[in-house]
Each structure stands twice: as C-alpha cells, then as structure tokens.
C-alpha cells in the first residue's frame, strides 16, 4: 500500500497531506486558519415534492432509508442523545448490512460501548470508516489498524464546523426524538424516552441531503417545542422504542467516591476561590467525569458560604447542576446535553434550563460562541505534557479510547483548569510529551494534581493572584519528575507508521495523527 505523504504542522506534529483521499490542511496555530469562502449550501428542496397534508410518515426505518436512496459510499449520521442507550445507529447499519450496502461512512456525534455491535460491519466493509469519535471497543479496533479508512476525530463544535464548511456532506441523517409529529417537528423533552435536547442533530437537520426523524411518541401536529424543525425533514418513522434512557447515566457522569479524587476536587475549588474566579455573576462549566462533577459540588459549598450566585453554568446537566439551579445558586443553565433524567426533567419544566447546541456553544466558524464567555471550565485529560499540551483521546499505551466531545471547544474559556491525578495505576499523567495532541498548551492554564498545582507561565495574572496563598504551587516539570520517581519512567507507546485516525482542531485543520499500535 502506498504510504500517505505527511507534513509537520505548526504544533510540530506529523500529519497526513490527505485523509481518506481528501486533501487536508495542517494545523497552523490558534486562530491562524481563515477559510476564504462561503458556507456549504444544501440542495434546494421544493414543497410540492412533499405531502401537502404534511404527513411524512413511512412504515419503517428501512423504508425511509430506501426512499432516501441509501447506496454504497454514503455518509450516514446519528446522534448520542441517549448516550450508551442509543439504539438507532445499530439498527441503521443492521439494515444497511442486510441490504448488502458497502463503504458507508458513519458520522456519529459520539460513540459509546453499545456501538461495539458495529465492529462486524467495520470488518466486512459495510462501514468504511468513522468520523466522530471512537470510544472503547471501537477505539481499540481502530488502533489495531483494522478499520478500512482513516478515522476522523472532531470536537462537538468541530462537527458543526465540518458540516457547515462542507468538509462532511451528510447524505442521510437519522435523528432519534422522544416526541415528533408526522411533519417532522421533533424534540427530546417529552414522551416515554425523553432524553433532553436534540442539539447534536441540529447541523444534520439543516445540512443533510435527507433527514429521517424516528420517534416512539408520535403526537399530532404541532410538536412543541420544535427543537428540530420539520421543514428540514424528509421522512418520519414510528418505532416501538427509540432509545434506552436507563443508559444515559454512565460511570463518567457520577460524582467520584474516591477520597483522592475528592481531594483534587476540593483543591480545585480552593484554587478558584483564591484567585477570585468564584464571584457574583460568574459562570462555569464542569465537564462529565467524576472529578469535574465533584468540583461543582465544592463550588456549591463555597458559593453558599459566601452567598454568591453564578449568572450561568454551561455544560451537560445532571442532578447536581439542576439542584444548584433550583436552589438559585445558578441563574441559568445553558445545557448542551443531559447526563441524567433529572436533567431531562428540569429542561422540560424550567424555562431557565435552556437547551443549546454546538452552534451556539462551540462553533468556531461563527461570529463568536458561548464557550469563550465562560469564566472557568474544569476538564479532564489522559495526559498532559510539560508544555501544558493535553491529550484526551488516547492512553499512554497508544490505544484510542475516548472521543473529544466538547473538550477542545471549552479550551476557549477564560480559565481552563485540568484537575488530574499525578498518576493512574502506575501511569504518569504528566509527561515529557503527550502521545496524541488534542489541546495546545497555550489554551490550558492550570494543572491541579493531588501533589501540587502548576500554573501555565503565560498566566502571570493567576500566578500573581495565588502568590500569597497556602496553595501547593509547583512547576509542571517538578510534577513530572515526581510522577516518574514514583512510577518509573514509562517507555513511549510503540506505533507502526500506518495512520489509523486523525485529530482535527476546532477549525477543521489537522492537529495530530494517531497511528496503529505495534502490539
């Protein structure tokens, strides 16, 4: 097989000149790439092609796919509003496989362990490659070099950008909704399978060639509110069950019990308090992940003690954030995805619990987005290097195991804090170089470990603010040394040359390449 030509990008990473046969632009630096063209425009539809009574119901998903013209090589999108309880992606590819369709591109907004079901279709060529995220078993499969094409990892914001910029042309979008009318107006708020919002499907509805809305709760026109507008929708389908809501909550959306992680969270709260981030009218976002969620709880404690109210909190909602909203500690909850059923309930009944989308929150090719307005964001990482660069997709053994989610987009917040353990089961988190670059160090401000806090030297304001505090401040090199003294210096992951996936930056340029693990 001919080797793909590579070039070094502005972050010093070797990336391919083309991905899946399409030319690719290397990362040029933060804010450097400026596309000089218009956004992508979908085909102009004509009303007279659609039923005049507005009834777009077809009997089954298979009928809808056939009428959408499903054929080899198409790009099919699905969404993760049900998280690990998604049923649609597996169903769609079961049908495609049964029809003998090949070389499809799966364009999910995120993948979960439940999608391990698709591995046989990746093996037999039904699916050519995945553009989105490759979690757990799919990541392992990809890292072993078994996927036909090259995987493409994007952030939530990057996904919207890729669609509107025309990098990804979606042929068929399949949108699961807990409520819909025959016209295709849909939401995730009501019905037995309510999952919250449909923000991740917004771009798909606007730009895909064919849009299929699938529901298990058909209501008469109008379905209110229409998170997805029926004017974009080609077909509606009713099924017995659209998603398994019991699987929305997963391990990463519960507060940690680990005393060590709780200590990290407490230290993070203290840091934010010390530097004055927690003030009346401030805003914050804590990502999924047990430690981030626990930080939110320490914020609550501090806010209650000092009688402080936040103007808004962003991010995935859960019982913890909802209770802060209901107690009046937070005025607005700008929600990108619901992490549990309390979040779903609150969104349906509380007008101050607002559904957002990657467009409003994260889209880099728009006239600003919300991520930059947030005072502080608390995120995780699998690895961080001495230049504050961070990795969220691969582990130190080289295996691709996580997606980017909103992580890259959140780096534009005013202060980015990563609370991480210094090491996990012998594997140092802080190291000389990250295995995969997902976030440039210039955007990452503070690393908080149980053995000390390292502030990025470019944040002289933060350094000054904590100078007189009792916080355990260290240099990042110092932390790296200590991790290696405890764990021993790890051998770097061993890779083959073959590129199995690429990591996109929020502007669509190539930040890094992930290679086949040599095992």
């Amino acid at each position, binding site marked *: 097989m001919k080797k793909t030509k590579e070039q070094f990008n502005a972050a010093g990473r070797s990336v391919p000149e083309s991905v899946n046969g399409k030319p690719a632009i290397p990362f040029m630096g933060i804010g450097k790439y400026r596309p000089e063209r218009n956004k992508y425009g979908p085909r102009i539809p004509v009303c007279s092609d659609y039923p005049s009574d507005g009834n777009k119901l077809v009997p089954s998903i298979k009928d809808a796919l056939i009428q959408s013209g499903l054929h080899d090589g198409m790009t099919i999108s699905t969404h993760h509003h049900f998280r690990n309880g998604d049923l649609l992606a597996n169903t769609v590819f079961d049908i495609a496989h049964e029809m003998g369709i090949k070389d499809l591109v799966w364009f999910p907004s995120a993948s979960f362990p439940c999608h391990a079901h698709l591995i046989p279709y990746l093996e037999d060529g039904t699916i050519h490659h995945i553009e989105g995220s490759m979690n757990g078993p799919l990541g392992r499969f990809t890292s072993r070099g078994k996927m036909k094409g090259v995987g493409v990892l994007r952030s939530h914001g990057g996904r919207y950008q890729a669609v509107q910029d025309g990098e990804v042309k979606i042929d068929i979008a399949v949108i699961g909704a807990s409520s819909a009318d025959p016209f295709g107006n849909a939401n995730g708020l009501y019905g037995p399978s309510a999952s919250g919002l449909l923000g991740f499907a917004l771009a798909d509805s606007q730009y895909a060639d064919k849009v299929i809305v699938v529901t298990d709760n058909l209501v008469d026109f109008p379905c209110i509110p229409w998170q997805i507008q029926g004017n974009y929708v080609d077909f509606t389908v009713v099924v017995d069950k659209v998603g398994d809501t019991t699987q929305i909550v997963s391990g990463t959306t519960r507060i940690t019990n680990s*005393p*060590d992680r*709780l*200590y990290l969270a407490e230290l993070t709260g203290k840091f934010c308090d010390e530097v004055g981030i927690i003030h009346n009218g401030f805003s914050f976002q804590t990502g999924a992940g047990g430690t981030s969620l626990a930080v939110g709880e320490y914020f609550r404690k501090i806010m209650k003690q000092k009688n402080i109210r936040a103007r808004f909190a962003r991010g995935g909602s859960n019982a913890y954030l909802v209770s802060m909203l209901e107690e009046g500690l937070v005025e607005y909850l700008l929600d990108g995805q619901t992490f549990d059923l309390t979040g779903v309930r609150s969104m349906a009944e509380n007008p101050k619990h607002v559904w957002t989308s990657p467009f409003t929150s994260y889209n880099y090719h728009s006239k600003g987005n919300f991520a930059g307005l947030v005072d502080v964001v608390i995120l995780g990482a699998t690895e961080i290097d001495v230049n504050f660069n961070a990795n969220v997709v691969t582990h*130190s*053994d*080289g295996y691709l195991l996580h997606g980017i989610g909103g992580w890259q987009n959140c780096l534009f917040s005013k202060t980015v804090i990563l609370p991480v*353990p210094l090491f*996990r*089961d*012998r*594997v140092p988190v802080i190291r000389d170089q990250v295995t995969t670059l997902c976030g440039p160090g210039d955007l990452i401000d503070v690393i908080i470990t*149980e*053995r000390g806090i390292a502030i990025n030297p470019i944040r002289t304001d933060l350094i000054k603010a904590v100078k007189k505090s*009792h916080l355990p401040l260290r240099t990042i090199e110092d932390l790296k040394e200590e991790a290696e*003294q*405890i*764990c*021993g210096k*790890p*051998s770097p*992951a*061993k890779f083959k040359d073959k590129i199995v996936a690429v990591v996109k930056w929020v502007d669509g340029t190539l930040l890094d390449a992930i290679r086949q*693990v040599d*095992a």
Partner: protein
Amino acid sequence: MSKTSIAGNHGEDIRSDCLIKMSLSTKGGIRLKIESRVESMYGDQINSLIKDILRFYRIRNAEILLQDSGALNFVIAARMEAAIRQLTGDTKEYLLPAAAWAKAIQYERNRIRFTRLYVPGNTPKLMLNVGIHKADGVILDLEDSVAPVKKGEALLLVRNALRAINFYQSERMVRINQLPQGLDDLDLILPQDPNVILIPKTETPVHVKQAADRIAAANKKRKIWLIPIIESALGIENSFLIASATPAIAAVAIGLEDLTADIGVSRTKSGEESHYARMRIVNACKAAGVQPLDSVFSDVADTPGLIDSAVRSKSLGFEGMGCIHPGQISAVRDCFMPGSEEVARSCRIVAAFEDAESKGLGVVSLGSKMIDLPVVKRALAAIELAEKFGLLEKNWRKEYEKN
C-alpha cells in the same frame, strides 16, 4: 507436583496491585509470564525487577505468573518476596533503594495527634496517596484490616511502603498484630524508622514493656513512640499502669468495637455504654502525662454523627480520634482545633496576665473573674494551637494591647 505459592491480589476491582503465582523446579530455567495493564510502558522494567529478585534469592528454575494491575515496583517486590518466602522459607530481605522522601523525621512526643488515619496493610491502592490527606498520623495496619492468611505478605508490603511512600507531614505509624505475633512484626518494621508503633489489645503493662524491650534491643537512633490501644475491660482497669509503663508512650488510644464486645453491650453513636471506660482512659492519661486518643467513628457516610462524636470526645478530654476514611480527617480536625471564641478568650486572658505582670500586680482579673496560673497555662496552650493552624497571627498581642 511442586508446590505453588500465591501472593498479592488480582481482579476486576483491584488496582495498583499484582498477583504472583510461583512454583519452583529443578530444571527448565525461569519461565516468567507477565500479564500487565501497563506492559507496553513498564513491561521491560517489571521483567528486570523480577529477574533481579530471583538472582537475589538464587532461584534459577521457576515458573512464575505475574498478573499486574499497575503495581509500583515496591508492591511487586513485596509480592515476589512473599511468594518466595512461602516456597523456600528464606527470610532474607529484598529491599529496593529507599525513596528520598521516605526518611522519618523525629517528631516530638507530645506532637498534635488530632487525626490518625487507618490504612489497611495489604491494599496498595489505598496507601499510595495517603500522605496528601494531611492526617497527623497515618497508620499502616497489620492487625484487624488484614485477613489472617495475608498477614505475612502484608508485613512485607508495609515494610516496603515505609521505604517508598511519601507521608509528607504525617507521622509514620504502624499498628502491629496483637502480641506476641506483633513482636515479630517489629523485627521487619523497626529498621524502616516508623515514628509510632500502635500496640493493639493491650491489657497489661507487660505488653507495653515487651514491645519497648524489643525496640530498645533494635538500638535505634531515633525515638520510636508507642501508642497502646486498650480494647478490653481488663485493659481499662489497668489503664494508668499501661499509660505509665514506659517513657516511650506518647498516647493511649481506646478501641471501642472490641471493648463494647468485651463488656457485652452494643456500641451506640452517643456512646453512653463506654462513658466510664473513656473517662477512665482520659484520667489515666492525664495522670501519666500522655495523650488520650479516642476510638474511630465507623459510619463513613454519617458526617453529622462524626462531628457530634468528635465534639463529645474533645469535651471529655480526648486529644484526637482515629479516622477510617480520608473524608473524616478535616471534620475531626476542625472539632479538635480551638474554636474562635476560645481563641479570643485565651488572647484576652494572656494579654491581661502579661499586662498585670509588667505592672507588678499580684492578682490578675479579667472582668469579674480572677485569673490564676492554670487558666493562663490553658490559654497559652490554646494560643499555641491556634497559631500553629493559622487561626491567629503571630503578632496577635498588638491587637490586644490596644484594647
């Protein structure tokens, strides 16, 4: 069939530990199989560590399976040593170089011991970060938290932990097994410079003296303090004799789970059933000039209950409590620290006393109350504590002089 030894732990929920299965043979060389979560990063290092240990014990033919879930070298070495001991009975000690931070500092006999955190002696995962929680003392426990069949390997693990782990400002404490087994524990523990040895189920001063003699025989440069734990009716009755058995005693702790069982009552959160025993311990300790330390509060989820218990404990005269979870530490410490009212009153007392002294007055009074020396002494002690915990500026006198 040759005998197979097993040491350590492996399983779905086990982290930072390893399991070793080993059997010796007379030929065939070393057949080592490593199954590790971190193989690509540390496989070579693990391999050379195992080979080094085998050379040390002159083992040339063996079959070894190592199932590793991210154990640090000191854990792997302890597990290997335990597996080899089981097969050969060789008690030679394999010691990795001690970490720079693992040196014991000499702490004062009357150092503050508000919180002492118990850590099971055979669970590496719970040991690694134990220093970050800032307990006054960390107890690596060889006694009740270790299953009888695991006692041998726990002893080796605790020994290695004392050489490898950073305890930061916490005292390095080890709870040995009930005597006489505990005396043999000391042979491996003492060379690693623990600060404190806790002697469980102490019933008579003889127990303490046996431990003290063993320590004296080890001829350590640093002082090693003793904390006998009294956990029986007989122990309670002997409490003064125990507390004053040797000058090496820094404190006496009470163990309420065993004590209530011994008395034949159930333990309650309010603790009426142990009131006499606790008061007896406090009194004996004060008479002997050592710290009385309270038992643990065993419901980890009940923070209000913990606080109640700690407040009551302090009011009885105890000077610290045991913690079984890092989450208990800050609550207990807060209870034992002097309160803001107590600090302010103490400052007023000391300021008034010093003022009277400088004026050559014989009698000191504050408001309508006479202040005598014991009151001043107690106030000074509270001030010292408050300064230590940053509750009071060192130059607090300025403020009180003005008034």
